[in-house]
């Protein structure tokens, strides 16, 4: 996708890009000066707190707020009545931010207060009387699909008969017992992908492996709880300071929920203490605005950790079935999968993306994936790093690991034999352009970790993964300052060092020093609309827009030089940070540096700036291959990750340190998903482990160094070849670790997390069958 006639096909020589300078926001972050969500305060602000349902599913018969309102220091109490439904708003989001008649999950917001301090606000919450009628609940995806399961949204989703959905013999066989009666109406959606003839394909197979898999819900686990300060003036003008991945999304969604003109709400994003997809929607933001509107004062709302676990998005739990057929030489002939993801109390589980990613790594003639989006009495799931993909990869890569084992093939060789490459028709439709899966597999095979000899109870696992990468709406401005330095205004929140990458790109494009560019994240009134920082889109999209904004500025600067020299504009070119006379005028004038042009800006026509706005396309997919060594203690079932290698295609790494950081962070989140992390629900449907003590994310002593190899297969859709890198890294680890455990002790865990008691039980099962 050439940008325009002047865009070189692909830049391959770089001066700034690919170096590792300190990030511009770094000093503030190591000194405690950086302001995150909860670090902002407005003069005279109140403290806002939210009352939440203690029941998984309950009719709200009445809410009496009179005692709370009478408490001295309480300035506002709100319920759903204070947020009346607006035409055109997203009803699910509206219901999620404040229950309307029915509490749909443990922790669902029911009311909120704003008071002069936290102690008064806490007391006020206790004074709100809510009368509930507890309803039957369901939190498990398979249970929710059964006939007779409590229906979360009566009358909303048509009851579905499995028999009418599936014609394939195996699926029919699997679901036959259930098809006698209706399968319930918690099925919010069904997605089908694939091509070829799966039944015919399986007939050609020498070996067929099929299994069922389950994964539990895991939380994004960002260390910074959601926080915001809302200030609505009596004239209806409003400001919101908030930690979010998408300030423009927050602005537009809040305005639509509260019936405001978008222009009346200005959202300023704070530094963000992790998101991983979990901060791509709203929870407390419209509530804080509604409280502020009612109280007439600024209101600060900060979630507790327990609220973060109970009411913000974890990802889906899943129940899956995968079958793959292969020839003796390892060639896959057919692949089939049924994926069931529950997305909490509202439709929108990432099963569609899980289905699209499931077999995306492989060149398959015959492939089919059916996905079900299921609702349950759990919090509304939110995006979590490559949403939906890690679960389906866990199942698919596990089956592939078993096929390799049974055929006696090397785990990388079997993947190389079937790997998707340029020209492969993907299992979800599009034909791949240049992609780097083969390169990651080859680099993994060549890495020293793949040659380390393993000891007793040790095993090695391999898994590959895919993520699409997004592009989308993006808008960038670059302003030339009077001294020749530059201010770069970005609209994509910096989650993990993107300001550094954008400064590198601007410096590269201008031929100037990295230190002469300073990037900021603009508020929503200062820049055009930008999509959320999600989908691994920031370095690709904002990078592309930065390149184009700089090129716009360069044209203007060349124009000023032409004016000064009295020659035509097209007789000036930009090189090494300066305007040069070109063509017939070459050598006729001394070059004008960016600093010289800046100094004369006022005299030559006024301030200089560059802009670019685009709904970007051309994000290249990123593939990864992971290799992991584990040691399992057969006495306890505990496992230690000994070595971990991430090999991933970055297209072009702008700031390699932060690319490595994405690889390492994603891998460790994935390791947590395999080993420990899960949502525990009690029989009453309430979350039992809403804290970091019982929901155990990996700590420093749980993991080894995470080795990385950055493969660079340039993406032709970007002038520097960039691909997004943020998400693919969490796709392979679940299967990678599970495959390693299987190779260590012969136990195949197909239910996550594979915590020590589960591994031990499986081990005892294997030993018993041997005896």
């Amino acid at each position, binding site marked *: 996708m050439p940008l325009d006639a002047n865009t070189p096909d692909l830049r391959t020589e770089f001066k700034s890009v690919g170096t590792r300078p300190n990030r511009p926001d770094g000093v503030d972050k190591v000194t405690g000066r950086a302001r995150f969500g909860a670090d902002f305060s407005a003069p005279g602000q109140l403290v806002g707190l939210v009352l939440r349902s203690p029941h998984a599913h309950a009719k709200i018969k009445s809410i009496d707020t009179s005692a709370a309102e009478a408490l001295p220091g309480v300035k506002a109490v709100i319920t759903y009545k204070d947020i009346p439904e607006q035409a055109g708003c997203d009803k699910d989001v509206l219901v999620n931010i404040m229950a309307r008649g029915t509490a749909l999950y443990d922790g669902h917001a029911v009311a909120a207060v704003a008071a002069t301090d936290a102690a008064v606000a806490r007391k006020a919450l206790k004074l709100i009387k809510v009368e509930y009628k507890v309803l039957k609940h369901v939190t498990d995806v398979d249970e929710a699909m059964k006939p007779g399961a409590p229906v979360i949204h009566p009358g909303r989703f048509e009851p579905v008969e499995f028999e009418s959905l599936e014609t394939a013999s195996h699926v029919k066989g699997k679901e036959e017992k259930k098809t006698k009666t209706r399968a319930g109406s918690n099925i919010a959606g069904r997605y089908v992908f694939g091509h070829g003839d799966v039944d015919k394909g399986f007939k050609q197979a020498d070996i067929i492996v099929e299994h069922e898999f389950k994964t539990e819900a895991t939380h994004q686990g*960002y260390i910074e709880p959601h926080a915001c300060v809302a200030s609505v003036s009596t004239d209806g003008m409003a400001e919101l300071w908030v930690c979010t991945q998408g300030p423009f999304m927050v602005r537009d969604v809040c305005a639509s929920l509260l019936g405001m003109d978008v222009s009346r709400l200005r959202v300023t994003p704070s530094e963000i203490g992790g998101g991983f997809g979990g901060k791509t929607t709203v929870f407390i933001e419209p509530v804080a605005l509604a409280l502020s509107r009612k109280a007439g004062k600024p209101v600060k709302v900060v979630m507790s*950790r327990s609220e973060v676990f109970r009411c913000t998005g974890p990802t889906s739990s899943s129940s899956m079935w995968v079958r793959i057929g292969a020839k003796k030489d390892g060639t896959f002939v057919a692949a089939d999968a049924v994926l069931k993801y529950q997305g909490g109390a509202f439709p929108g589980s990432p099963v569609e993306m899980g289905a699209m990613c499931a077999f995306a790594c492989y060149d398959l003639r015959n492939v089919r994936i059916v996905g079900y989006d299921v609702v349950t009495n759990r919090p509304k799931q939110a995006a979590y790093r490559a949403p939906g993909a890690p679960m389906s990869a866990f199942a698919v890569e596990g089956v592939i690991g078993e096929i390799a084992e049974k055929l006696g093939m090397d785990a990388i060789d079997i993947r190389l034999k079937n790997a998707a490459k340029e020209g492969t028709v993907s299992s979800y439709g599009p034909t791949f352009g240049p992609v780097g899966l083969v390169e990651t597999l080859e680099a993994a095979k060549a890495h020293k970790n793949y040659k380390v000899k393993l000891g007793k109870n040790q095993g090695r696992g391999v898994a590959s993964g895919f993520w699409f990468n997004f592009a989308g709406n993006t808008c960038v401005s670059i302003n030339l300052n009077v001294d020749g330095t530059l201010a770069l205004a970005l609209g994509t929140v910096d989650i993990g060092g993107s300001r550094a990458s954008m400064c590198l790109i601007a410096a590269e494009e201008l031929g100037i020093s990295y230190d002469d560019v300073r990037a900021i994240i603009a508020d929503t009134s200062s820049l055009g609309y930008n999509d959320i920082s999600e989908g691994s889109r920031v370095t690709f999209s904002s990078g592309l827009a930065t390149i184009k904004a700089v090129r716009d500025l360069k044209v203007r600067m060349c124009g000023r030089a032409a004016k000064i020299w009295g020659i035509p504009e097209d007789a000036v070119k930009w090189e090494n940070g300066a305007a040069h006379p070109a063509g017939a005028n070459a050598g006729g004038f001394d070059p004008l540096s960016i600093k010289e042009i800046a100094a004369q800006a006022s005299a030559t026509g006024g301030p200089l700036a560059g802009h670019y706005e685009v709904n970007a396309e051309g994000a290249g997919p990123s593939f990864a291959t992971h290799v992991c060594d584990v040691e399992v203690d057969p006495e306890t079932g505990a496992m230690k990750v000994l070595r971990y290698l991430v090999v991933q295609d970055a297209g072009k790494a702008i700031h390699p340190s932060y690319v490595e950081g994405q690889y390492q962070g994603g891998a460790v989140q994935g390791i947590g998903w395999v080993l420990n992390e899960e949502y525990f629900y009690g029989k009453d449907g309430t979350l039992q482990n809403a804290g970091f003590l019982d929901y155990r994310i990996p700590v420093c002593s749980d993991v080894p160094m995470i080795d990385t190899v950055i493969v660079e297969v340039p993406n032709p859709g970007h002038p520097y070849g960039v691909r997004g890198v943020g998400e693919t890294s969490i796709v392979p680890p679940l299967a990678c670790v599970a495959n390693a455990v299987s190779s260590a002790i012969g136990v195949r865990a197909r239910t996550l997390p594979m915590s020590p008691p589960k591994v031990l039980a499986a081990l005892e099962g294997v030993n018993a069958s041997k005896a």
Partner: protein
Amino acid sequence: MSAVHVSTKINGDDVEFVCRPDESLLDVLRDRLGMTGSKEGCGTGDCGACSVELDGRLVCSCLVMGAEVGGHAIATIEGMAQGDKLHPLQQKFLEGAALQCGICTPGFLIAARSLLERNMDPTETEVRYWLAGNLCRCTGYDKIVRAVMDTAKDMRKAAAKSSAKKPAAKKAAAKKSPAKKTAKKGARHAA
């Protein structure tokens, strides 16, 4: 509940504040004194983002009551750099990209400094166990551990240089070495 008047020392400065008896030291630092460098990730002592030193001991400030710090000395992230000079750990975190979002960074820096004050030559395992009370969700810990190990190496080099100039200093450094043994799992909580 009537408020409590407290006199204490923070980063070497005398500080007075009033707080309610149910306020944590973290609440006081953030909400009463405007020192928002210490972060609240959990409020239950599980994440370490609020780490400070209390009379030289590494503690989670969310587990210390504001009312009980009278007469004690507190060190927070705001006091880690000296003037415009970053602490070597801060410099190394910056250069080594040992932070992504940065919310856990103040806690890690305070905890790491506390380790290096006790043990200038920690093994990777010792670093990992010492920092096991600090959660990071972005980095996978790799670059954090490397930054701490690299800082320790630089500090040892600097110490060796200065002790080569002043032989007396070498003895003092040698005396400190048994502290290394305390850098094991749980030591920070037992200290």
